[in-house]
């Protein structure tokens, strides 16, 4: 019997199916599962989730695999029949605990229960529950939108049965087409721990230099499809805040200060600035033009009225990237003179150093982190950056930025054979270096 055939997944229940992660995950499950039940507080809300899922995949065929229901009327019966219960409620520990009380009472002893949580402790969520629940409970952190972004994180709790972890990995990979990365049950897991460290550093810099300059400095030319502050606007300031505060409070490490949420962002967040979903964040569209936030005052100014310093090195790197000359582009980046080049390099150095130092803590191997940064964040993976800069140059970059070089980087720089750090041949690295 193969691993995949060891369990039948024919009925899946998605809890919180009216939220973005809920209906997106439910849509994903309909790719592989004949019956997916969308559950929400009310049948009407679940129906809205189903409609959103259909819009997202642009196929009415999804409906033939879906049912809808409410917690009060349908949870017990649906969960009782489910092979897999997928929880996608808001990122609220108490709320999740509450729904798991109901799931635990209703579920069959052999069903899998997974949470889509992006950073709450899996072991803590399972604490105090029956052995059967704890053995079958794990985290499957999908990125938003779940059926579009391939990367996902698989997190076992203290008591999760290894067979359940193995099966879930095989199922997510083969049936759901996901790039699965196993992570430790640490705050914000792997991708968000590293990614939001960089994003938050960008917010800190934006307090001093303004969002426009920062998004240009840490822009696509540094190996990402979307600049950092535009990314935060897209995912939501509240989400950013929750993730960063979780890391800051629960995982003090060598980069602790870069994970402190700036007060200005905190204040604006409380007064309703949540990014794109609230009509604007660091940037805002108005009458066809883009406005830029002043974090100190909360006021917006037209992008065209903000003067940027000369950033010729970025233009030169982008020109080289546009011809596929990525290594040469990185060499120009590393050699560029002036405070703005130094500022950008410090962030990239921080990304590399922080990521490599997390190997062994948030995941087992560097390739795990590389894969989740590439397929979850759409960022150039840290291992590939080291390879393309050259390990010696990457080490100098980190040391010159006043950061402690992780052992992995020092070893790579010492390796006379020049062995590659990044070995995921199915991922094109060039795509991350967007020109301009």
């Amino acid at each position, binding site marked *: 019997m193969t691993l995949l055939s060891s369990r039948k997944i024919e009925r899946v229940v998605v809890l919180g199916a009216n939220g973005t992660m809920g209906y997106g995950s439910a849509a994903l499950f309909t790719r592989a599962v004949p019956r997916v039940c969308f559950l929400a507080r009310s049948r009407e809300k679940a129906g809205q989730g189903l409609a959103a899922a259909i819009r997202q995949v642009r196929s009415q065929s999804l409906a033939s695999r879906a049912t809808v229901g409410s917690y009060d009327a349908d949870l017990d019966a649906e969960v009782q029949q489910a092979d897999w219960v997928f929880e996608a409620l808001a990122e609220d520990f108490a709320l999740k605990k509450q729904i798991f009380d109901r799931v635990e009472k209703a579920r069959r002893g052999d069903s899998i229960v997974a949470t889509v949580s992006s950073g709450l402790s899996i072991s803590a969520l399972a604490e105090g529950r029956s052995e059967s629940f704890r053995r079958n409970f794990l985290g499957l952190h999908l990125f938003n939108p779940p059926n579009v972004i391939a990367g996902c994180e698989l997190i076992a709790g203290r008591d999760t049965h290894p067979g359940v972890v193995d099966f879930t990995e095989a199922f997510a990979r083969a049936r759901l087409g996901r790039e699965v990365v196993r992570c430790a049950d640490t705050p914000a897991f792997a991708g968000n721990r590293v990614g939001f460290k960089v994003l938050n550093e960008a917010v800190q810099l934006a307090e001093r230099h303004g969002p426009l300059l920062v998004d240009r400095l840490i822009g696509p030319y540094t190996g990402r499809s979307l600049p950092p502050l535009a990314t935060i606007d897209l995912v939501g300031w509240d989400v950013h805040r929750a993730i960063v505060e979780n890391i800051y409070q629960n995982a003090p490490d060598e980069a602790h200060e870069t994970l402190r949420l700036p007060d200005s962002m905190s204040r604006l967040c409380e007064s309703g600035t949540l990014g794109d979903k609230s009509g604007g964040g660091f940037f805002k569209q108005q009458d066809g033009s883009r406005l830029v936030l002043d974090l100190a005052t909360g006021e917006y100014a037209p992008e065209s009225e903000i003067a940027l310093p000369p950033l010729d090195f970025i233009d030169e790197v982008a020109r080289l990237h546009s*011809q596929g000359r990525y290594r040469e582009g990185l060499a120009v980046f590393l050699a560029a003179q002036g405070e703005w080049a130094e500022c950008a390099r410090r962030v990239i150095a921080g990304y590399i150093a922080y990521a490599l130092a997390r190997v062994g803590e948030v995941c087992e191997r560097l390739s795990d982190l590389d894969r989740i940064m590439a397929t979850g964040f759409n960022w150039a993976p840290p291992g590939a950056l080291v390879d393309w800069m050259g390990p010696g140059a990457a080490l100098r970059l980190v040391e010159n930025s006043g950061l402690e070089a992780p052992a992995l980087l020092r070893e790579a720089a010492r390796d006379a054979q020049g062995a590659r750090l990044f070995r995921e*041949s199915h991922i094109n690295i060039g795509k991350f270096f*967007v020109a301009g």
Partner: protein
Amino acid sequence: MAVSEVYVLGGYQTDFSRNWTKENKHFSALMRECVEGALERCEIAPEEVQSAHVGNFAAELYCKQGHLGAFFTEVHPSFSGLPTSRHEAACASGSIALLAAAAEIEAGRYGLQAVVGIEQMKTVSPAQGGEFLGTAAWFADEAQGVEFPFPKLFGRLGDEYDERYGLDDAHLAEISRINYENAQRNPNAQTRHWYMNAEHAKSRGDDNPVVGGRIRVSDCSQVTDGAACVFLASRDYAKKFARGAGLKLSELPRIKGWGHNTARLRFADKISESRGQRYVLPHVRSTIESAMRRAGIADVNGIDGIETHDCFTTSEYMAIDHFGITAPGESWKAVEEGWIAADGRHPINPSGGLIGAGHPVGATGVRQMLDAFLQVTGRAGDYQVEGARNFQTLNIGGSGTTSVSFVVGR
């Protein structure tokens, strides 16, 4: 004079889901990434390459750039001065480049050739791209003023089948579904994360509109940016390469057979020529048979898998009987019986084909060759056809106009 055998050493393809325009990349980046990837994957030093052939359909239109052979020399300083050329035969451009490279090896001119197939198509709107593709037909007669001419031409291929033998569109939908499903296992396939299932492929409506005759969106191949590169080598060079890689020469695949025919350009002329014949596109049949004959393979039972030109589901439907998997007009049997599925008795397009993997026009023939190489060397990963020793390709330009087929095996 005995001609040299032509060996396939391997190669590389770019991720066909990428949009190089969104990445702000110039055409040369696509060429460079692909060739550098191939050199690295095959562990071939750039200095070893003796000549290069580039297959491309319409960079002049899509990218305002001609003289593509010369772009090869931009990839590495040691390529400066190499003899290079560009080949065009619409969607068969990549295979024509392969044929030219193989012929030069057979003639003893060069020991190691790089063959690149390349197309950047997302530079223009779908309607504009559709018009550009129309130049692969007789433009003034068949495409001018027609929105999306090619779906309509291949819709007529379906109509011709319908008239001669009967055709159930459900079989076309199943061909689409299989290609999308196969693509999910191919890490370079454009549609690997797209939403598709049997109901969707069968549906017609806002989610799956008709684009020409009986052709729905789900029946179409994709608009794709991508490139593929393979290295072809003479026996002498292959021996040296095998030694370096710790392999026996017999472990390296070679081009065992090829076929190449060009039919009349207009679809109506092709169809009127084939009236009363067993095959709807007899020149395509001839191409397939020539490749098998040259390979010393009696029929399709000697072929372990096929990478065919499914620019539309009707072209794959045509390929099924033209390969001899069924009698003419009975392709539906192979669809219904599951013979063409990845684990069927005649797997077609385990890569996902043009529908699932994508169709960067000039790159497709080279991508098919690369996939055939991966299959017969057991390196196709999750889309490997178990134990494959011989794979056959079919690459078609225009409405069944230029046909090229290769048998690749060990």
